[in-house]
């Protein structure tokens, strides 16, 4: 009896040790490789996930938006295949999915999403508590906007993993969706439809584009300082010509190279009605601060006030977006490329730039303030066919 009591007491002492079993696991050999996740299907719901109520098509979802952010409620689902990848760095913190009715920008606020979501993979999105909104007219599905005094957006990123886990379920990796070939009429129709335009967020191929001989880029001389429209002194516009930029975008190194070349010397500073061009004291090669009343607002440059704009721009150089204008018939298509894209510094085909050649491009169609924009998903050697 005494032995039994001792054994029981010893056993009780052992099991009462916190996590005794767990603490020996690393000691007793390496764990086996993890099992592969089982893909989500209509009939295979992961534990604790909400049961699927009703599916809406992406088009149906978009029609719920009435000009103000909409918090979706109820057991509403959409599903679509992944059509975007951030592998080249031209798309960042978002995934586009598409069904047979259209595509939508899912604002998953994480980096390297291509590592998690493969092209052609079906995503099931539980929309309850998500917010449908617009960014300069472009439909987006995210979360309720931040409640900060400076917020300008209708939605915020779905960047908390638990919320992603509750709303985005990974299905099978299937055949990637083939891009839809669109013509000018379709683009115009989408532009006139506005938010519910069929093309926005969709993988498309546009054929027969001609180079438009202009670019648009807005760079901030000192990105660390305020640079909204109320701070025109910290905005430099590159527009209405190409400014000698022949690459898809400007990496930091390329941006500095362009500044050094003098190609940007005549750029205007300012925004809206407050612009300072070559006739003014305040453009790229002039001093940031002259002491004149008109330019007193640029005192915000503080210790850099003695530098020229160009010097300030070099000092705080970062990668910059560039939009190249193309023409589809009479319709402008801006192909917007991130300076962080791995192909940012690739040069556009010379024949294309000179107007002698045309291009078919494949990527995601978006809308920005009533104009058609285009985002390359793959590097130009894959997504731009010049002929």
């Amino acid at each position: 009896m005494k032995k039994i009591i001792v054994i029981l007491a010893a056993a009780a002492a052992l099991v009462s040790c916190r996590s005794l079993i767990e603490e020996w696991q690393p000691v007793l050999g390496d764990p086996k490789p993890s099992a592969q996740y089982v893909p989500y299907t209509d009939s295979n719901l992961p534990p604790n996930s909400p049961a699927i109520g009703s599916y809406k098509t992406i088009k149906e979802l978009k029609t719920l938006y009435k000009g103000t952010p909409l918090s979706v409620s109820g057991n509403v689902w959409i599903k679509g295949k992944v059509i975007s990848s951030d592998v080249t760095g031209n798309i960042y913190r978002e995934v586009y999915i598409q069904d047979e009715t259209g595509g939508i920008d899912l604002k998953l606020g994480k980096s390297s999403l291509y590592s998690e979501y493969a092209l052609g993979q079906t995503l099931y999105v539980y929309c309850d508590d998500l917010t449908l909104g617009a960014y300069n007219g472009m439909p987006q599905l995210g979360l309720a906007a931040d409640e900060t005094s400076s917020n300008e957006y209708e939605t915020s990123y779905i960047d908390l993993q638990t919320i992603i886990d509750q709303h985005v379920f990974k299905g099978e990796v299937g055949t990637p969706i083939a891009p839809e070939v669109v013509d000018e009429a379709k683009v115009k129709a989408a532009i006139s439809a506005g938010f519910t335009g069929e093309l926005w967020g969709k993988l498309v191929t546009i054929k027969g584009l001609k180079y438009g001989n202009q670019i648009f880029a807005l760079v901030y001389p000192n990105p660390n300082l305020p640079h909204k429209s109320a701070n025109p002194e910290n905005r430099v516009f590159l527009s209405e010509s190409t400014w000698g930029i022949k690459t898809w975008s400007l990496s930091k190194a390329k941006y500095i190279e362009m500044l050094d070349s003098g190609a940007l010397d005549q750029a205007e500073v300012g925004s809206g009605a407050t612009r300072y061009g070559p006739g003014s004291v305040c453009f790229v090669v002039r001093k940031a601060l002259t002491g004149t009343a008109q330019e007193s607002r640029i005192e915000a440059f503080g210790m850099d006030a003695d530098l020229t704009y160009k010097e300030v721009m070099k000092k705080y150089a970062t990668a910059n977006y560039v939009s190249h204008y193309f023409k589809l018939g009479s319709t402008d298509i801006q192909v917007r490329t991130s300076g962080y894209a791995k192909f940012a510094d690739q040069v556009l085909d010379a024949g294309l730039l000179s107007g002698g050649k045309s291009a078919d491009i494949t990527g995601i169609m978006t809308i920005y303030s009533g104009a058609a924009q285009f985002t390359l998903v793959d590097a130009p050697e894959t997504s731009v066919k010049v002929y």
Partner: protein
Amino acid sequence: MAKRILLTIAAMFSAALLFAQTGGVKGTVINRNGRQGVEKAKLVLLKDAATIGTTVSDKDGEFVFRGLPDGMYSLVVTAPDFLETQIDFAVVDGLVKNLFNVGLTSIQHVTDLDDDSFAAFDMDDSGFNDNPTILFGSNDVFNNIAGYNFSSVRFRARGYASESQEVYLAGVKLNDAITGYGPFSLWSGLNEATRSKDTVNGAEFADFGFGGYNGATNIFGTASQMRKGLRGSVLTNSTLYRLRLMGSYATGMQDNGWAFAVNVSARLGGNDWIDGVYYKSLAYYLAADKVFDDANMLSFVFFATPGERGAQNASTQEVYDLMGDNMYNSNWGYQGGKVRNARVRKTNEPIAFVKWEYKPSEEFESNLTLLYRFGKNGYTALDWYDAQDPRPDYYRNLPSYFYGTVGGVYNDDLNRNNPMKYGWSQWVWQHSGQYPELTHINWDRLYNVNYLQGGRSKYIQEQRHVDQSDLNMAYSFKYRPLANVDVAGGLSARINNTEYYKKVADLLGGEYFVDVDNFAEREFAATPYKLQNDLDYYLANGQARTLHEGDKYGYDYMAKVRSFGGWVTGTTVLGKLSIAAGGRLGYESFWREGLMRKGLFPGQPENDAMAAQWINEGIEPTAETSYGKSNVAKFITYAGKLNLNYVIGGNRRMYANVGYFSDAPKFNQVFLSPRTRNSMVQDLKTVKTFSSDVNWQYSAQGINVRATAYYTTIKDQSKVMSAFDDLQNAFSNFALSGINQRHMGVELGFKFPTYIIPDLSLQGVVAYGQYVYTSNPVMTQTVDNNAEIIQYPIISPDGWTNSTVVPVRYWAQTNLMDGTKKQHYVPTTPQTAISLGLAWNHNYWFIDGDVEYFDRAYLDMNPLYRTDYAVAGLDNAITNEEIEYMTEQERFAPAVLFNISVGKSWFIQRKYQLGFSFNGKNLLNNRSVKTGGYEQTRLVDNTVSKERFYRFDPKYFYMAGTNYMLNIYFRF
């Protein structure tokens, strides 16, 4: 006259012959703590294992046995509160053998401190380090008590950095050649083999080496120094590992002149407090001594401690509060339902040495040791390419990322307020049991990301190696030319080649990884050669290396250190006063040798063919190079010390030490970014230390007291902190130079009988110091993925200017614009540490109870927060509020702890000894004691106002709550 002289000589000769027939042994039993005589020590004289005599020491500790014929004898010395000691000696030619001092070591009731006594803090990517100092206690009343009782708060004697504590093995100074850190981990688990040691405090002289200003310890480590007999123990504790099994056997010196010893142990399992921390370690030790004659002995020793241990990570207080657990460890997660730690130290660094002891006479002895350390030292970590940060407590996963507060109050300037995300994030962390995949590393997700990539792993587990090949020679001698003069000295030399590299440890379900620098890719994606970690391979094969498990990648370089030097000390006794003086002179050089040419820093082409290839491939040569040999840093080092020792009445003494040291900085304090290039800190200087102390010691009749006052200045220190900055997506390296410190304070240790209850003593220690910075260093920042030295705005006499050499203006003090000043302190160790307790010893029972108080411990500071730039913010306008906020150094809250130790041993059949010791620590279960931490080296700069910066939350380590250690042992 001549006849008278002859008669006299004849009489003397006859007397000598008469005396020779009555040989003997004599000596003085002394307490190694203070070296005073031990009264009533029992001495048993053995010949051929048979007792042939006993005696007790007199009031001065002296003893004598007479009438011994020539032959070998053993003398066993026992005394209450002291460890038993056995000495073997020979009586030759009928002379009385004078053993001089027979030192007894105080019984230490607790398990020896070693590297295992301290949790392995994972600070690899933080820019800071934490290397505990181990106070070896048995021969000093202060260290004896403080060493164990203060170890839980990682107490550092006098506030000194651990690398200033000199640690010797068999006479070889074995502080790490690259970092200077104590090498305790090399023999952890070999407690029996390393138990015998000599220790000196502060700037005292040692006879095994010159020593520094922070004490020196020499572990004997030879077979004959190990306690004779068979011993075994089983130990369990609740803070580090569940089980330790240890066995040892030592023959002692045998009649045939051989001594053998073996010690093996295994430390296994986890603990009650820190999940993911575990041990899977073995240790073995083999040694043999051979006495050739009376003068020569050779020792051969080989040991190693192969194994692995999981490391503990620091987190922010926000995480601890959300988890409701200050011991949360973000390093581990479940894989297939089983615990796996991402940060595991895996080591196998054997040491072999040969020692020659030469003692031709009573007046002269010397030791020559040749020691070699080699093997592998790896530390695993997660690595990822173009994938999300897998750390569960990454700041973007925390509630504070969605609701910005400063000082606990919402601040709109931080531009973070999303109630939904904040609420969910908080819920997840507060219900971590429901969300283990989010609050711990989600290994299953990492595998599944890899599965999705068609072979190329996005996540891997890397193993960072620091593999040393460390050859040491040390020679020391002691010589007594006159009865009152001792001379000691020595020579040492070291050749250390350490290879730093990392390798793929686990592809986590993928098939391969690719050797490119994903940090560089952010800036140079369009220039593929710049992304190459191994440019030569890329040029030869047209693509980056495809990596499989075991392959080296990322970086690979050698740190090479050469040093040699000599020292000499002389001691003379003038009555009650003894004076010792000595000096040391040395030379140290080191350099880096890159073994992998990195695309960002290719250097210059080495020949015409390479130059042509580079031109062809568009590779631009760089001034800084990753490949080949760097400049050699060379230093002449020297030091001098003086010791005065005055004995008062036989049981009290006053002594004082003063020393000046000019030491070389260490390799890791000099190279700006050794992973990527050869660049060194400019204007290298030796570190100059002046140290002085004055001491009073009393030891008699069970009373032991030591009181010390000390004053030390340390100047011209340099430091390089490399921290991963996810905003830069690279390692940022902050090189500091010109760091000065001042350490002053008092130490008191005492133990004396209560005289009220028999065998009950009152014991305690007080350590009160002030360890402060006395200079503002300058900082230079580089980033691993860029050749540029980062420029910062600084305030110069001409106003704001940009500079790459940045004064850290608020390092030593916070200087407000109204003239108010607030001192900054040397961090981590408590500057006030007090212990008071009772110790009862009777009939092989002991019970110790102590209460400890700690205060004035400070958080490690980063230099960035103490610059003009950080204080001013983006608007370059400095306010008192900004200075105060940004430069503040956190002072940890004071702590009170209760500890108890109980033990008993039994002798069975007068032959075997069985015993146990139980140590209960932190009995009040105080779980809010910070034992370390650091400030994150980065700024919150994306504010709405664009006027000022904010700090990232610091990270902390905490002490475990109530914990225990139980050791059951047997000896025979």
